[in-house]
């Protein structure tokens, strides 16, 4: 097990190195850099001023030199300066992480809290009206884009309550704080809740047909015990995998949701940074996201072993 963990950690480092190279090169392949955009915003191009600015930002250096400088700084905790705000990249990124983290955690919580129980109910009540209704809900969750759902929620909120949950860094009340995070989390989590529900349902249906479930029933175990103790415990493994993958995909959904709900999180910030070709922000943020994804996958693998004693990662 120990050797497996070491191997996985080494693989994580290789993956992160690969990602760093890919993101660095890709960013520079995309036409236009920050200097082009700054002059574009000014409506003219002065070649001499442009060259000066490129020199000032180090963009005139060979790509390899730029990469070594970035990685060297990163290893020493120096993330560089944002080209746009001219503030340290770390100072720009750090305050935004908790906002997105809260949103992502709430969305995942919503996804699991809604998706798993409804998936179980749908499986247990297979073929009933309730099952059909829940399947329609899950299908709609998969097909409704989160930006559309988000806008619909905002419009309904304004029409019904005369206000809307727009971001406020210092919410006055507990309910305001809840609305600021919970409503967008529901909008973005609805899709993953639907996916979780469908996976839980199919996994449960498969397990419920197993011999040991029939045996449990024959021994007189209650329906609740059969469904939740015997069946769900074994059906939950693929669900965890999906939630793990969804955690990685969530960043995509959060970009849209943060834009619609005007939440100053990491996801929206990343899109803006890409638009401005703000390399220090994009590179470091993508590395951070990559790190989160790699660590999440690693954690999911470890969770497998914890949940299912039959799974053991041998040396």
């Amino acid at each position, binding site marked *: 097990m120990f050797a497996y963990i070491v191997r996985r950690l080494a693989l994580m480092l290789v993956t992160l190195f690969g990602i760093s190279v890919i993101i660095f090169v890709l960013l520079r392949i995309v*036409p*236009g*850099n920050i200097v*082009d*955009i*700054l*002059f*574009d*915003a*000014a*409506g*003219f*191009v*002065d070649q001499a*001023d442009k060259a*000066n*600015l490129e020199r*000032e930002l180090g963009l005139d250096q060979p790509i390899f030199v730029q990469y070594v400088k970035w990685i060297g700084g990163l290893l020493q905790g120096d993330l560089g300066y*944002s080209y*746009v*705000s*001219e*503030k340290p990249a770390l100072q*720009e990124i750090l305050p935004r992480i908790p906002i997105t983290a809260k949103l992502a955690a709430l969305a995942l919580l919503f996804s699991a809290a809604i998706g798993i129980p409804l998936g179980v109910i749908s499986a247990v009540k297979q073929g009933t009206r309730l099952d059909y209704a829940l399947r329609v809900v899950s299908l709609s969750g998969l097909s409704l884009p989160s930006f559309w759902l988000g*806008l619909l929620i*905002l*419009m309904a*909120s*304004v029409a019904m309550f*005369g*206000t*809307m949950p*727009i971001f406020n860094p210092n919410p006055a009340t507990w309910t305001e704080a809840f609305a600021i995070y919970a409503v967008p989390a529901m909008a973005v989590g609805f899709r993953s809740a639907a996916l979780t529900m469908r996976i839980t349902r199919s996994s449960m249906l498969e397990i419920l047909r197993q011999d040991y479930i029939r045996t449990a029933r024959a021994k007189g175990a209650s329906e609740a015990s059969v469904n939740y103790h015997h069946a769900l415990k074994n059906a939950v493994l693929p669900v965890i995998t999906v939630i793990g993958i969804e955690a990685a995909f969530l960043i995509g959904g959060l970009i849209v949701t943060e*834009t*619609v*709900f*005007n939440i*100053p999180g990491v996801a*929206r*910030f990343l899109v*803006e940074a890409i*638009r*401005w*070709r703000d390399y220090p922000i994009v590179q470091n943020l993508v590395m951070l996201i990559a790190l989160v994804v790699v660590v999440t996958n690693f954690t999911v693998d470890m969770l497998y072993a914890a949940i299912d004693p039959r799974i053991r990662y041998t040396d």
Partner: protein
Amino acid sequence: MRSVRALAAVAVSLLATSNVAALAAEPKKGGILKVYHRDSPASASIHEEATYSVNIPFMPIFNNLVIYKQDVAQNSMDSIVPDLAESWAWSDDRKTLSFKLRQGVKWHDGKPFTAADVKCTFDMLMGKSQQKFRKNPRKSWYNEVVDVTPKGDLEVAFNLNRPQPALLALLASGYTPVYPCHVSPGDMRTKPTGTGPFKFVEFKANESIKIARNPDYWKKGLPHLDGIEYTIITNRSTAILGFISGQFDMTFPTEVSIPLLKDVKTQAPKAVCVVEPVNVSTNIIVNSSSPPFDNLDIRRAMALALDRKAFVSILFEGQADIGGTMLPAPGGLWAMPKEMLETIPGYGPDVKANREEARKLMQKAGYGPEKRLAVKVATRNIAIYRDPAIILIDQLKDIYIDGELEVVETANWFSKVARKDYALGLNLTGNAVDDPDQSFFENYSCGSERNYTNYCNKEIEKLFDEQSAETDIAKRKKLVWEIDKKLQEDVARPIIYHSRMGSCWQPHVKGITIMVNSSYNGYRYEDVWMDR
């Protein structure tokens, strides 16, 4: 008797109403004005940017030497008032403009404002100082300024190559604040210091911009507001919903499109909304240095094919203006009369006849139904660029031109245009000052950085100088009309329309004036107050 009583009642009620009105007109102190902002500006430095996304939040931090009176909607020479300058005077030969400066004005950091700050600002704008702006988009505004000379701490003179009465108009723009000598351009981009009614508090990219009342403002009793908060909301639907729900006191000025304005009026009927010209023209840029548009006949045919009314009715439900380079009346001061405009090819009301003539010109150039001209119509990947480009492509089909839309990401747009890597493009041109000097020299003079089409006509260039030096307004107007007509006939940069946009604010917001001939100059906001 009954009628006497009725008259008395009317008199009493009128008196009461007038009292209420008088009370309501008395500005109240305090309150934070909440406005949503359409995007996150590149920096806080007005001199380095060329978008009103910067002017709107940061203009209240500064003062100019002179400024357009903020409660007069039409910018003109008559509406220019002293600001940091107490007075100004032209020399007899009209080649020196002197300003007497206000005494006792302090920068927000407590340092005194002097004539040296004026010199620093304009030396930097003219590219003469040690410290440089990263970008200097309006350097050409000061082409005729030889130098700026302080005379002691409280007087400064602008010495010119030749008379240029319009210099005063350029100095009155929201784009011309005075910067402090002792603050670096870098700091001005991130935490600007001014002498204005509001002090900079915070600029969080993609989040918000906050400014607060300057308690030591040299205009005693102003500003009325405690501060202004701009929340950056890039999603237009969210922003409008925020305004409708009352979370914002004001929309981003001149940013509400005509269809959205209808939504606002329906859902927030008490909101005060106005639609005004923004002095931004939508125009066609033609690469006349290479085939096929090096052929004047093809350029003229294209100009003749334009059905400008169709653009205006489709995109603005009729609420936009048709004109030449200068903003049309009544908002604009320099536009040629309608009768003169209609004599220009393509501006006449008979679109069918115009297109018939256009087809003849195309046939003369060797094109026809059997041999159509295929061109790419390049434009920026932004809706206000793309939408008219699509209509343009549709209209050009009638004269044997098959256009294909080429959308270019914003990052690459001006580089592409500067490289002349296009045949036909659709562009927007914003004019900060409704004055021919700004428009002609910036967009049409030989060698200007913003003359995207490289149009260069030495004869017209002489007329540019002639009108610029002319002190008689009536004579200057006639010259400007002739120049504008010639520019359209030469198909230098055919103007399709001048857009209008909406601005809305809640009824408790008072003292807002939306300028009718520039969307860059009216955001000092020292007179704005909230009645609640």
